[in-house]
């Protein structure tokens, strides 16, 4: 269920009034649910999906595969925290397979991202190896197509 969350995930700016009508609830109920989701950290934030390549702003994204030596007792989580606390890290996942973490890093230039890897990440204790892949082009992010198709085209121009 969680229809409210589904609607917010599609469009974070949807109004409670609209949600209420769409789901057949009262506005009060919708507001209460949203507040509860926020309190319980189910909803963690509201963000826009931006195609930075459309405006003049230098932006580089890299996906970095990291292999680590987990510490006794603390496992992966403590190590992960030391990595994701860096503000350059925008996404981080623990992975199954041949490496341990995938981290997504944003920077304003190749140099900046490289510096982050060589100065902050690689020298960190218990890091075994890193492998950095730079993003060349964004096609889709957070479920949003970067080349959106307009609403249905009407071909019936008779």
């Amino acid at each position, binding site marked *: 269920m969680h*229809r409210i969350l589904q*609607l917010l995930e599609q*469009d974070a700016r*949807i109004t409670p009034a*609209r949600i209420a*009508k*769409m*789901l*057949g609830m009262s506005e009060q109920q919708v507001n209460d649910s949203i507040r509860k989701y926020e309190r319980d950290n189910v909803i963690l934030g509201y963000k826009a999906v931006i195609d930075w390549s459309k405006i003049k702003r230098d932006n580089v994204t890299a996906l970095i595969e990291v292999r680590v030596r987990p510490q006794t007792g603390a496992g992966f989580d403590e190590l992960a925290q030391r990595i994701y606390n860096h503000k350059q890290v925008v996404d981080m996942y623990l992975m199954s397979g041949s490496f341990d973490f995938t981290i997504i890093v944003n920077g304003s230039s190749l140099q900046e991202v490289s510096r982050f890897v060589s100065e902050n990440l690689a020298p960190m204790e218990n890091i075994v190896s890193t492998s950095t892949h730079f993003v060349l082009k964004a096609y889709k992010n957070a479920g949003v197509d970067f080349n959106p*198709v307009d*609403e*249905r085209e*009407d*071909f*019936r*121009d*008779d």
Partner: protein
Amino acid sequence: MIDYSSLISDKAKTIKTSGIRKFFDIVSTMEDAISLGVGEPDFQTPWQVRRAGIDSLQQGKTFYTSNWGLVDLRKEIAKYAWENYHLEYDYHKEIIVTVGGSEAIDNALRSFVSEGDEVLIPEPSFVCYTPLAIMAGGKPVPLKTRMEDGFKLTAETLKQAITPKTKVLIMPFPNNPTGAIMTREELEKIAAVLRGTNIVVISDEIYCELTYGGKKHVCFAELPGMRERTIVINGFSKSYAMTGWRLGWVMAPKEMLQPLVKIHQFGIMSAPTVSQFAGIEAMRTGKQDIKYMREQYDMRRRFMYQRLQEIGMPCFEPEGAFYIFPSIQNYMEDDEAFCDQLLRKKKVAVVPGSAFGESGRGHVRISYSYSMMHLETAMERIEEFIQEL
């Protein structure tokens, strides 16, 4: 100079052009005008279905299929009928694939209507039944449905309309333009009237996947004694958002399907091959897509119904398809004038109810097959329009 009007057949002269498109020519010339008029899904065909069509082209599958349609597709259709309605149709002899539901309706009417036969058509309903009945030589007989009855066909209305000349009854549910559906109990009352007769039923079930509030569509052939007299028409356009592929199907007892197969064989050959390959994929993997689209329509339906309530337009809560059919009689007599003024003053296009038959007069059809943003803006404009009247 040729006098062209003297060349046109009498029947073709009798039929009128569709009243749906009338306002859309104006829309395209108006800046910032928005339409709530289109009767097709706003979703694109699911990607894996488009992919299957592309694959078939890449593999060079560009030939005619059997007149009946691809065997694999007919098998999927038979499976669909069994899973959804517990109806058995032999895919060798009781199913054909057509060029959309429209060909099927045309073909079915031509197969059973002789000159002067009466064709019972519940109204308001989709614009094609009357002209196609006329072209088949029949005499269209409208059966009025009313907002108070939820725009359902009642047994009384049917009974009163039946004469010795009655040949065909069209069953257009879930209904375009009203959004009405009919439950098993309600259909049973219709079946009870038909049981002692030889009336053929053409059941147009193109919107069968779009029913809301947990009410599952009932196929007319499911009712006891109805399979033997019913031509079930369905298609991919609305369920799978595949209007442009032009793909539909007919299920009927083999004796009844024979004339349709002949007409289809000579008039059409076979439905588009690329579409048939896509159709197989749609039926195999499209269930989740249907569910997603249905949920989206359902939310919009609730939104539209609520908004019309707020505005104060008397309205029947639709249970199927993607239309809502409010009455405008509190504001104006003439639905065409209402649509005309709404378009000129507030730049919103909707379709006059009278385009769907006399009993649609005094209503307008609003399609909610549009994005929420589009619907919200349109409803704000309609609200302003009503307040200024």
